[in-house]
């Protein structure tokens, strides 16, 4: 089992199969989204689908290389990988190409562009795993927690400067990793609470929101008034919440950029701007909604074929699935993702080494967050923040970084009996 040459026997073939299935689904849907009868070629590198074909070929090659690497090499060089991507993230702010308002890409020539933020997710997971798996590191301790937060927060800060809100938020999903490693569940609850407070304060008058949370808190305090400590905590929490609610309007009006405000407005239904800012989401909903149960058939989606949804091969690729393959296709794709994520958790939990486990949770969290936000966006449940659908969306950087993310885990897993 410990034989490095027998790694093919130890690789988790179930995950590899799901990976290949998603890449294949992705390629066919990209082909549908940008189908051009004038360029049917797959290998001529002229269309998105022929490019994606080559990206898949490269990604699989990289996957094989990763599987052939020494596990030790990966863990040992985690800080170096992290450092390189951080440098790239800084570099992109200087030499980055401005595409769609974001300085996110470094041009490599020949039409190939590199998006460092995609790789930062991967290297951050590695370094976080490396740090947390170290001796005497306990997330419940403030010092460790702060260092872990700094590892996550630094790339977030750099990406926010691009500015790329979507990729920044992805890092927040690593809270699941911290939670798994012992972070107090209150952080999760508080995170959820603050998201709810943020949205309700925009939707309703802050006074109503304060009134509701005050009443709820006071009722709880009244019931549990014998526990003095809890009462104090509750009241402190209430004070913080009230302060937060009062500051939301300010943040919303003065900190967020106008286009981000509009996107949030559209999701929570304050605004409907179907021709302007809300056009994408509306057309995307039309595409998916018109697919009905069995879809319109491959290459027969009118929304897809007649380019009603912008960015359809990248962030809105799920429209093609929903329109041409219908609810049936949507279930298959979401089912594959769910299965993949649960499989990754399963793999993570069977690791002996904390590094592998922590890294596995990082992989699961990042993929899950991408899937959740991307699909929620296409059906109007989340604001448009522009993050790709793993393995399916068009894009070399995205595909390559997700492949590396996943296959490093598979490599670690194939070697799980060894001690890293």
């Amino acid at each position, binding site marked *: 089992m410990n034989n490095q040459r027998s790694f093919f026997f130890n690789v988790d073939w179930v995950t590899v199969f799901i990976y290949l299935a998603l890449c294949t689904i992705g390629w066919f849907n990209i082909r549908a989204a940008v189908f051009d009868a004038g360029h049917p070629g797959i290998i001529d590198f002229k269309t998105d689908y022929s490019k994606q074909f080559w990206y898949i070929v490269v990604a699989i090659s990289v996957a094989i290389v990763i599987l052939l690497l020494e596990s030790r090499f990966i863990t040992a060089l985690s800080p170096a990988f992290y450092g390189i991507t951080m440098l790239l993230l800084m570099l992109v702010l200087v030499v980055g190409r401005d595409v769609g308002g974001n300085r996110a890409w470094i041009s490599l020539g020949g039409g190939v562009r590199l998006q460092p933020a995609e790789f930062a997710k991967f290297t951050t997971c590695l370094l976080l795993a490396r740090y947390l798996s170290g001796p005497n590191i306990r997330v419940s301790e403030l010092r460790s927690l702060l260092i872990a937060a700094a590892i996550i927060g630094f790339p977030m800060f750099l990406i926010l400067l691009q500015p790329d809100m979507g990729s920044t938020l992805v890092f927040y999903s690593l809270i*699941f990793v911290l*939670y*798994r*490693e*012992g972070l107090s*569940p209150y952080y999760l609850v508080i995170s959820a609470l603050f998201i709810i407070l943020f949205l309700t304060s925009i939707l309703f008058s802050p006074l109503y929101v304060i009134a509701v949370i005050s009443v709820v808190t006071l009722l709880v305090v009244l019931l549990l008034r014998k526990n003095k400590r809890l009462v104090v905590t509750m009241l402190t929490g209430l004070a913080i919440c009230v302060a937060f609610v009062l500051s939301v309007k300010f943040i919303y009006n003065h900190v967020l950029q106008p286009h981000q405000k509009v996107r949030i407005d559209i999701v929570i239904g304050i605004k409907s701007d179907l021709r302007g800012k809300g056009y994408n989401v509306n*057309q995307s*909903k*039309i*595409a*998916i*909604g*018109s*697919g*009905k*149960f069995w879809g319109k058939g491959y290459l027969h989606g*009118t*929304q897809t*074929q*007649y*380019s*009603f949804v912008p960015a359809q091969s990248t962030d809105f690729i799920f429209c093609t699935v*929903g*329109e041409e393959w*219908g*609810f049936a296709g*949507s*279930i298959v794709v*979401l089912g594959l*993702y*769910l299965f993949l*994520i*649960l499989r990754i*958790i399963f793999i993570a*939990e069977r690791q002996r080494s*904390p590094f592998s486990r922590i890294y596995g*949770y990082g992989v*699961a969290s990042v993929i*899950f967050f991408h*899937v*959740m936000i991307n*699909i*929620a966006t296409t*059906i109007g*449940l989340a604001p448009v923040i522009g993050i790709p659908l793993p393995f399916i969306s068009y894009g070399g950087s995205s595909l390559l970084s997700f492949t590396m993310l996943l296959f490093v885990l598979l490599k670690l897993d194939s070697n799980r009996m060894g001690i890293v």
Partner: protein
Amino acid sequence: MNSFFERRYVIAGIFITIIIILLARLFYIQIIDDRYAIYASNNVRRLIIHNPARGPILDRNGKVLVQNVPFYDIMVTPKQVKPFDTVEFCKLLGIDRAAFDKQWVKAVKYSPYLPSVFEKQLSVTTYASLQERLSEFPGFYSSTRYLRIYPDSVAAQFLGFIGEVQDKDIKRSGGYYHPGDYIGVTGVEKSYESVLKGQRGVENSMVDSRGKSKGKYANGVYDTAAVAGQRLTSSLDITIQKLGEKLMKNKVGSIVAIEPSTGEILAFVSSPTYDPNLMVGRERGNNAAKMYEDAYSPMLIRPIQAYYPPGSSFKPLDALIALQEGIITPQTTYFCPHYYLAGNHKVACEHFDGITDLRKGIAMSCNTYFCNVFDRLMNKNGSKNTRPTFVTWRGDVNKFGFGVKLDVDLPNERRGNVPTPLYYDKTYGANHWRSNTIISLAIGQGELLATPLQMANVECTIANHGYYYRPHLIKAIGDKPITKAEYTQRNYVGIDSQYFEPVIDGMQRVVDNGTAAAARIPGIVMCGKTGTAQNPHGKSNSIFVAFAPRDHPKIAIAVIVENAGYGAAYAAPIASYIVEKYLTGNITKPKDEVDYIMDKNLLPDSDEYRPKVRVKTTAKDTLKKPKQTIPAKKGELRSASRRNKKDTSTKYLAAQVMHKEDE
């Protein structure tokens, strides 16, 4: 393993829950909510409307009155345009560079991807030179449209015109019409709109997000082809219609000719007329405005809308009613002392006719004779019973079509006026009017008003010895003759046929050696009656009604020329030319005589001319209102205007009663 092992379930639980929420939402928008499928089809589906050519209208012999000519709009899709020789292109289109630039900017502003009209309504000749070379200018192409064209510029009021649909038309049609569509506004165009318009063709095409065409929607199963409107064959005879319009040039008045054996209208002249081609094309709006401003109201459809006192042409009706009632016989004579004494007022008679019988009375148009007849008729039940007697008489007159609509197949027909007893009650007080009070009715004056169509229809009745067919203008739709029951049903007027002979004798004498001897046509026995109706605003109106030939009549006619004096002066010769032209194909009268009538300008001074009726109270009419106020000289006029308050659209000018009527 560490102490937080169980947290894997919490994390997995959160992931599963959120994926299920996404699936639930997908289930909702994909399966439950049907709106998105409709939105998607609205996105890609574009209806292209193919407007059908409107049906042409022919005369009774198949000659074209109105048809369609193709015109060409040059369209442009700016994104498809490639560099080209603009100078050459402008030359071909016949526009200058400035106009080109203006249109180009407009087209690009409208949409770089969608076609828009670059140059409108190119004539066939311009298009012919452009057509061969259009392929040198990619992005430009032509689109065919049909416009109405009137090759002989004839029968404007009869044909009517079409105009863009109004909002109310669209609403009433239940969405059939779209803005920009054309609809018949007046005349035959309006009354036969449903037949003429044809069937619109619909093509369902697919477009992409930029509006670029992507072929047929659903393989064309929802497409329908355009069906051209049906051809109408009218009863009009273009030869006499044209002749009539020429003869009525520079005159105000009307000619209506009807075939008595069918009720088909042969001529329908309303003068002054206008060139119907003016109501088509780019200058339409300006031309229409000018015509609405015109003091002589060329838009008025005089044959069915203008009111005239029938004057002496009414006398045959007096005779027929009296004969039927047994009041007189053809041999009844009255002595004509040059006047008729109605109470203390004299109704003058132009002639000293001496002892006059019925035939002579008609032939010489003796006022005295018919005043006597009318007086006896009104007093047949005693003078105290004038009112019920008058009601009976009114009913008899209505049967001839006076005072009622004849329901001709044209919109906005008016019914004329036969005064009601109520009207006299109001004017003179109940029971304060007798035959002498209303004696002017005997000579077709007073409050009696008729349209030219009604007058011609009475001649049909006389020609047919007692019945008429409903007058109509359209004989056939497509290849199918119209066989409506109401067109073949005889409308009897309640006079036995035997009573017609003496009256017709008298009418024949009118033409042979009576008041209209000048209108004799060699070889044709024409029976007629002149009328010279009082016109309070100037010279009398010249009226002539007739039918010919006496046996098996082929044409009945009414001619009214306003301000032209005696009936015999203009109306009678005009009628004779038309009748002769219709029956024999030519006119035997010397050409200079005909030309004299044609060239004669009898237009009244436009400042003084007041139209006989006001058709509609439009803004323009309101402006003219002060001019139309009639000086109320007499009591009946005042009460007439009182009455008109109830019915402002039928404002008419009652001629003065108790005034002489001559011939």
